């Protein structure tokens, strides 16, 4: 698709893009992956510690400790975002801070802060899910499809 589009460009533009590509600083993909792996893994480790903490000191089981763990991570992210630390972490860790639940929380919270100047209803209310919205839309849609498939298969094979 991208190649097809490129072929439609005049030769002058194609030549320029080749020249430009040579000078363009490439994303350090491998370095980014390693950083993302380490930081992302570290966040998960913290999550695990929190879970263990809730199971040990409170009346939670492995099944029920998930919710308070996520809530704790979200609250921590809220402070890190509010104090302007999370975006610096994100620049360093990339996917490492974007993929875990903290990344989702940061997307919601940063949008909410950003649009505070337009008021609570049309600003915060409307724009809070600007970045996180697609995750919810396609998350719900994907789980619906999977549930449908599962029901079909169990009905067909199960009986």
């Amino acid at each position, binding site marked *: 698709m991208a190649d097809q589009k*490129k072929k439609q*460009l005049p030769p*002058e*533009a*194609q030549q*320029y*893009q080749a*020249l*430009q590509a040579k*000078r*363009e*600083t*490439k*994303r*350090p993909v491998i370095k*980014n992956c390693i950083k993302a792996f380490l930081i992302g893994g570290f966040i998960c480790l913290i999550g695990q510690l929190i879970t263990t903490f809730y199971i040990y000191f409170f009346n939670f089981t492995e099944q029920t400790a998930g919710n308070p763990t996520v809530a704790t991570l979200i609250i921590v992210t809220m402070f890190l*975002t*509010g104090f*302007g630390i*999370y*975006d610096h*972490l*994100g*620049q360093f*860790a*990339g*996917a490492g*801070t*974007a993929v875990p639940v903290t*990344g989702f929380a*940061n*997307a919601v*919270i*940063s*949008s909410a*802060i*950003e*649009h505070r*100047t337009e008021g609570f209803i049309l600003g915060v209310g409307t724009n809070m899910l600007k*970045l996180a919205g697609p995750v919810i839309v396609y998350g719900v849609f994907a789980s619906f499809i999977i549930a449908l498939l599962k029901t079909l298969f169990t009905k067909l094979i199960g009986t």
Partner: protein
Amino acid sequence: MLIGHSTWIFENEPTILSTGVIGGPFEAQGKIANDFDILHEDLWMKQKSFEQAQQIMMEEAAQVAVKKANIQKEKVNFFISGDLINQITPTTFAAKTVDVPYFGIFSACATSVESLALSAMIIDAGGANYILSGTASHNATAERQFRYPTEYGGQKPPTAQWTVTGAGCALVAKSTKGSKGPVITSATIGKVVDMGLTDPFNMGGAMAPAAAETIIRHLQERNVEPTYYDLIITGDLGRIGREVSYDLLKKYGIDINAKQYVDCGITIYKEDQPVQAGGSGSACSAVVTYGHYVKRMIQGQLNRILFVATGSLHSPMSVQQKNSIPCIAHAVSIEMRSES
């Protein structure tokens, strides 16, 4: 007077009488912090929104320029300005405060030179005695207009650029006997150049051909060698755009000494500031040129400069609709009056 296809030569010597240059906290840590008239410690500048903060900077830049020139504000005929935000409202509100007849223009980051060229043209033609020409940008307003919320933890690629928080304003005046200051001698108006690049995180790469096109055309139409200028200053190409445009110029037979080819986006910040490829934003070229380079001219370190501001004219919507990035560059030559 028109020479060539689209270059104006100004015979009546429109003069940059004074400049006002305002910066934010991040610029205060930069390489040219001493060249600002006012530096703000806080991004909010005691305002309720970043857009208002940007407006305040524009107002201050205009006020400083008028004050330094030691004239009454009522003498200023026009205010020509623009910015990057929706419907250029921060500039409009600033124009309300400045309270001078106003032209609102948009050329993204090339707004500084577009407004300077128009000011010089109007003054040269006798259409005004004093014109305030300038532009402002704010990192947080541009981030939210073009990219993500300020506190969003997305990773920016090494090609991305950092929008300058600041405002730069020049007071352009009709030349009178004994008037001092750098003279605007010519201007070349750029055309929209689009090489099909689509990455809004690589604006330097997208804008480089526009810069090269305008520089080549300016040199041809004015019939001067690149060495005529002490410096050729591009607006906000950043490290990548500067190199690519340098290569392009070489390819078309324009041989410029690398030291003579500088970029405001690289000049403004220190090497260790986390700005990826360099600074950008409409204020970038205005702040660095009016604050740093014009000052060097007045101090006698530079005699002739070619100021080429580059603008990437996309909108968030045009990018999402998978359009390429249209770019523009305008050039203005500024020269010190010869002693005779």
